[in-house]
C-alpha cells in the first residue's frame, strides 16, 4: 500500500458470551481511503466497529490508530484520539435538541480544547454541521421527534463534531428512500474530498459501488474477500454468502 495506514487491525478475535464473533481479522485502512465492510447479517460487522470504538473489548489481537496502540482503551479516549462513529440503530439524545446533540460532540470530542481556546461560538459550529448533513431548520427539534433518516444524519453531524480523522458509519443508508441514499452517498463523497477517512458498513450494498475505494467482505466472523468493489462483489465466496448457497454455521441474528 502506498498511502500510510491510519487504522491497523491485527489478528483480532472477539468473543461474546463464549461465542466467537470475530476471528483473526486483519484490516488496514489508509489515510483518506473509503472502505466498505459488507457481509450478511451476523457476519460481525457491527461488532468490528464496536471494537474499534472501544465499546466491545477484544479477546486478543491489536488495534493501532495513527501509530498508537489503542487496544482496550475506553470509548471516550478513543473518541478523543480521532475516531467517531454512528450507530446502526440511531441513538440521538432524546430530550436534547438537534443542535444540543451536536454540541455534546463539540464540548467533549477531540476538538473540544480547540473550541474552548478560540472561544468559537459553539452554537454556530453546531448549525454549520447540521447544515452540512441537511438538517437546517431542525436545530431546535428534540432528538426523539426526528424521523429515522433525520436521526441518522444527526448522528453523522454529531460524529463530525468530535473532529474525527476516521469516521465509522454503520448502515447509514439502510431503509432510506433512493433520494436519501443519494444524499448519503453525496455526503460521504464530500467528506472524502475534505480528507476524511471512512470505514462504513453497507449490508444492503446501497453505497458500496458509489463511494468505496475498497471492499472487505465478512462472513461468520472471518474475512472472506478484500479488494476493489467490482472484484469483491463477484468473488464466489461473497456471492454464496449473500445468496445463501451454503448453510450458515450460526443461526442468523442481528449483528451486534
Amino acid at each position, binding site marked *: 500500500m502506498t498511502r500510510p495506514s491510519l487504522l491497523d487491525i491485527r489478528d483480532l478475535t472477539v468473543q461474546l458470551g463464549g461465542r466467537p464473533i470475530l476471528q483473526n481479522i486483519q484490516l488496514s485502512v489508509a489515510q483518506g481511503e473509503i472502505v466498505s465492510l459488507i457481509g450478511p447479517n451476523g457476519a460481525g460487522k457491527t461488532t468490528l466497529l464496536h471494537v474499534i470504538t472501544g465499546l466491545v473489548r477484544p479477546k486478543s489481537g491489536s488495534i493501532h490508530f495513527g501509530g498508537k496502540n489503542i487496544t482496550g482503551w475506553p470509548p471516550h479516549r478513543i*473518541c478523543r484520539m480521532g475516531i467517531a462513529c454512528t450507530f446502526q440503530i440511531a441513538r440521538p*439524545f432524546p430530550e436534547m435538541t438537534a443542535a444540543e446533540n451536536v454540541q455534546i*460532540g463539540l464540548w467533549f470530542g477531540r476538538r473540544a480544547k480547540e473550541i474552548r481556546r478560540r472561544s468559537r461560538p459553539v452554537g454556530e459550529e453546531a448549525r454549520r454541521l447540521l447544515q452540512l448533513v441537511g438538517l437546517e431548520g431542525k436545530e431546535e427539534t428534540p432528538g426523539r421527534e426526528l424521523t429515522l433518516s433525520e436521526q441518522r444524519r444527526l448522528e453523522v453531524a454529531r460524529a463530525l463534531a468530535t473532529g474525527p480523522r476516521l469516521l465509522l458509519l454503520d448502515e447509514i443508508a439502510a431503509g432510506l428512500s433512493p433520494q436519501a441514499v443519494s444524499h448519503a452517498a453525496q455526503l460521504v463523497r464530500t467528506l472524502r474530498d475534505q480528507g476524511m477517512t471512512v470505514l462504513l458498513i453497507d449490508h444492503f450494498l446501497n453505497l458500496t459501488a458509489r463511494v468505496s475505494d475498497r471492499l472487505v467482505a465478512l462472513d461468520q466472523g472471518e474475512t472472506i474477500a478484500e479488494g476493489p468493489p467490482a472484484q469483491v462483489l463477484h468473488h464466489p465466496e461473497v456471492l454464496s454468502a449473500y445468496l445463501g448457497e451454503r448453510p450458515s454455521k450460526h443461526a442468523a441474528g442481528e449483528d451486534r
Partner: protein
Amino acid sequence: MSPPSSSRSIALLVVVGLTLVLWPAGGWHTQLVCRVLGFAFLYATVTVAWNLVALSGLISLGHAAYFGLGAYAAALLDRHVGAQAPVTLAAAGLCAAAYGLVVAVAFQRLRAASYALATLASVEIPKVIADNWNSFTLGSLGLVGTRPLPAFSVAGMELDLAHNITAQYYGLMALLALACILHALAIHSRWGWALRAVREDERAAAVLGVNVFATRLGATVLSAALTGLCGGLYAHLMGMTEPALVFNLHISAMPLVFAMLGGRFRWYGPVLGALVLYGADQLFLHPWLPAGHAAIYGLVIMVMLLFLPKGLGS
C-alpha cells in the same frame, strides 16, 4: 443548554426566597417555625445532593449511609477527641465522600433497579457497625450530648449557632444557597452537559468523548460529601445520633420524594419540593396526624408519577 425556564416560576421563587430571608426580621416569628424551616433547609440540601446523582441517571436509595456516616463521624470526633465543629464537619464530609467513592467504584456496572437496590443495601453495613460496636459507638443507644455548633461573630454581628434558633435558620439557609449554586452548575455548565448526556444515553455519550465513569464518580462523591456534611450538622443540631434515626430508610427516601415533587431537572426543583413538603408536613400535618407523614410521602410519590412526572417546577 438551559431548558427554557418559565419566568413565572423564577419570580415566584424570588418572592419565596425574599420572604424566607425577611420574615424573621418582623419579630413575630416563632421558634418552632424557625426550627422547622431550618431543618427544611438542611433536608433541602440533602435533596440537592441526592439529585446530583440522579442527574447522572442513577436513582440512589442509599443516601442514609452518607448522612449517617457524616453524623457519626462528627459525633464520635466530638465525643472521643473533643474536636471543634469545623473539624468534625470536615470529617463528616470526608468520611461520607470516601464511602461514596467506594459505592461509585463498586457499583459502576449497575444501572436502574440494580443500582437502587445495591445502594439500599449499602446502608446496612455502616448501620450494623454503628449498632453493634458498643465500646466505640455506644451501639443502638446512640451518642448523646454532642456539643452544639459554636458561636462566632461575622463582621461585628454575633452569630450564636449554639443557642439562637434564628442564627441557625440563617446558617442553614446559607448552606442551602451554596448547595443551590452547586446544583445550578450541575445543570448549566460543561459538567452539566456531561451529566445530561450520560443520563440520556451513556453509550452515545461515551463515543462522543464523555468520560462516563468519571462523570458519575464525580457526581457521587460530591453528593456523598454534601450529604455527610448535612449529617454532621444534624448531629450537632440535635445533640444525639442514633443508628435507627440517621441510617433510616426515611433519610434515603425523603430526597427522592422531595426532588420528584419539585422537579428534578430545574436548579430550584429539589429545593422547592423539600421546602413545600417538609414545611407542610411538619407545621400542619404533624400536629394533627403525627404518624401520617409516611403515608403522605407515599401519596405524593404516586400522585406525582401519575399526573406530573416532571414535578411542580416543570
